[in-house]
């Protein structure tokens, strides 16, 4: 039963990557793409290897990471509408990154650290807000707090950008919209270095997330160490979101839409859901980026705009189903 679905997913990953490498100002057929990857002397090698392959792989890794964060956070806060963007993590990470850029501390390795500090700060604030409203944590209030903290972070970000000098402003503004224009092998390397550990942590916590999705008290009774799991997952998701935001800006809705679809088609059990969500999230962002590059040539849309155009209607559908 699951073998054809898994095979289909593998084919999907390969096809999306080949297709996306072919898209751009110079169109390449899949055959040329494959030759460009494997043959250094092929005519398409330079364009494929130096420009498109790192970009597509980065899109895949970032999309997968955002999907993974969404799936883990949804289980943790027991709300299918949660994702790094709506919980304020992306906003906090963005603020951290903008602050680093404005202070001219914006090296490729430093921006993710500052973004991580911002994301952790946002999580702490969101949690604090959600707990103040009542004795026990309400997942719905948590989401509301996330949106509020996200809006606050966006406001401070705008202020910093406006008050900075001109070149910094332009850089920060472009990056903020979300885009993979800055992709390079180095960016892919930095991202992977920061993302490897949190991805492993989230995969290792798959069973604990199954239990936490039932509620914290039930999870304790079934053997989960709830406080430890929550801390680990929040920190891992913050780090992963921060690495994504630092590399390619704020990209919303990947973490919202992808886990939901995977839960329907595969399983809500996280040992299956997390890897499948990672691969599907990767496919989603690779295709969204290809769309962003090819919709209005020679202009390039920010990829965050494309994910929002797809994500918002889906969010509306989800909201109706959740409240029904």
């Amino acid at each position, binding site marked *: 039963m699951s073998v054809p679905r898994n095979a289909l997913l593998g084919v999907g990953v390969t096809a999306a990557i080949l297709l996306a490498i072919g898209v751009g100002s110079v169109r390449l057929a899949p055959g040329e793409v494959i030759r460009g990857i494997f043959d250094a002397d092929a005519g398409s090698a330079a364009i494929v290897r130096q420009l498109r392959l790192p970009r597509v792989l980065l899109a895949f890794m970032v999309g997968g990471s955002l999907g993974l964060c969404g799936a883990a956070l*949804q*289980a943790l806060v*027991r*709300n*299918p509408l949660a994702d790094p963007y709506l919980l304020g993590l992306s906003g906090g990470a963005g603020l951290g990154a903008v602050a680093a850029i404005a202070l001219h501390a914006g090296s490729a390795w430093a921006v993710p650290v500052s973004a991580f500090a911002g994301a952790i700060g946002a999580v702490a604030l969101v949690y604090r807000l959600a707990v103040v409203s009542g004795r026990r944590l309400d997942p719905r209030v948590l989401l509301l707090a996330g949106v509020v903290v996200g809006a606050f972070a966006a406001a401070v970000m705008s202020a910093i950008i406006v008050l900075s000098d001109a070149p910094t402003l332009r850089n920060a503004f472009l990056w903020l919209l979300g885009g993979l224009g800055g992709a390079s092998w180095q960016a892919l390397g930095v991202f992977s270095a920061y993302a490897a550990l949190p991805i492993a942590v989230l995969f*290792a*916590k*798959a*069973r*604990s997330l*199954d*239990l936490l*999705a*039932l*509620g914290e*008290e*039930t999870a*304790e*009774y*079934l*053997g*989960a*160490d*709830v406080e430890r799991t929550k801390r680990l997952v929040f920190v891992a998701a913050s780090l992963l979101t921060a690495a994504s935001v630092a590399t390619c800006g704020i990209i919303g809705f990947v973490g919202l839409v992808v886990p939901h679809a995977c*839960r329907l088609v595969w*399983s*809500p*059990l996280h040992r299956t859901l997390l890897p499948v969500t990672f691969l599907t999230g990767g496919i989603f962002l690779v295709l969204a980026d290809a769309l962003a590059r090819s919709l209005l040539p020679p202009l390039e849309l920010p990829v965050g705009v494309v994910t929002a155009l797809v994500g918002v209607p889906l969010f509306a559908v989800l909201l109706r189903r959740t409240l029904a």
Partner: protein
Amino acid sequence: MIIEARDLTVRYRSAPADALEGVSFGAEPGELLAVTGPNGSGKTTLLRALLGLLPLRRGVALIGGRPVGGWARDALAREVGVVPQREEIVFPLRVREMVMLGRYARLGPTAPAQPGDRDAVARALARCDATQLAHRRVDELSGGEWQRVRLARAIAQEPRVLILDEPTVSLDVRHEMELFELVRQLVDDGLAGIVITHELNLASRFADRMLLLDQGRVVRTGRPNEVLDRDVISRVFGWPVAVTTWCDGSPQVIPLRPAESSTESGKP
């Protein structure tokens, strides 16, 4: 004693009084203890304190002779299975998957489920008469089916102690009786059972011993005919009752209407 509370005392932060005060009791394998009392008397607090989810002001909860705080959560889940009062279904699983969650404390974080685990799940489903539900989604079950599935999940933990918090709330007579019969059988097969319940009359018929709580304190404990005293029950629940005896010898509590309480003689 497989599970024991000694002088359990709990006070919630910023509360003026103790939610539990000096509660002591224990349960042996093969014994069913019913914990009862009015709303807000501390029954669920007792469960959470017993399982180490609340900080204690005084006293100790012992599982297998060891303080509960010294147990890792997964090791504890292999000793004690709990069916909590409420549970939200946010991401609906299939029944078989839901019952398999009871095996997680034995599986660890990464190992795949073994044939032994699948057997345990199948046995637990069969035990709770839920085998035919295995492929259903849990959000499509009736109230009685859902309780049986949650009980099966606790059985799949293969615990030595089984604790149920208000398991028959909103169940009709048949499902209520089925559940109590099932719990009684499981206890007769060697589990130590604790049922938190409002159902005084069912507790009286199924439990070996009862514990009556009021405002966080033990008012009475003992066999059902020692606990279900007319004056004690009337006072604790704040409503006049009569106590009669069913043909199996168990005392049965009948709440009285105002006109009946003046002439009440203790007999129907």
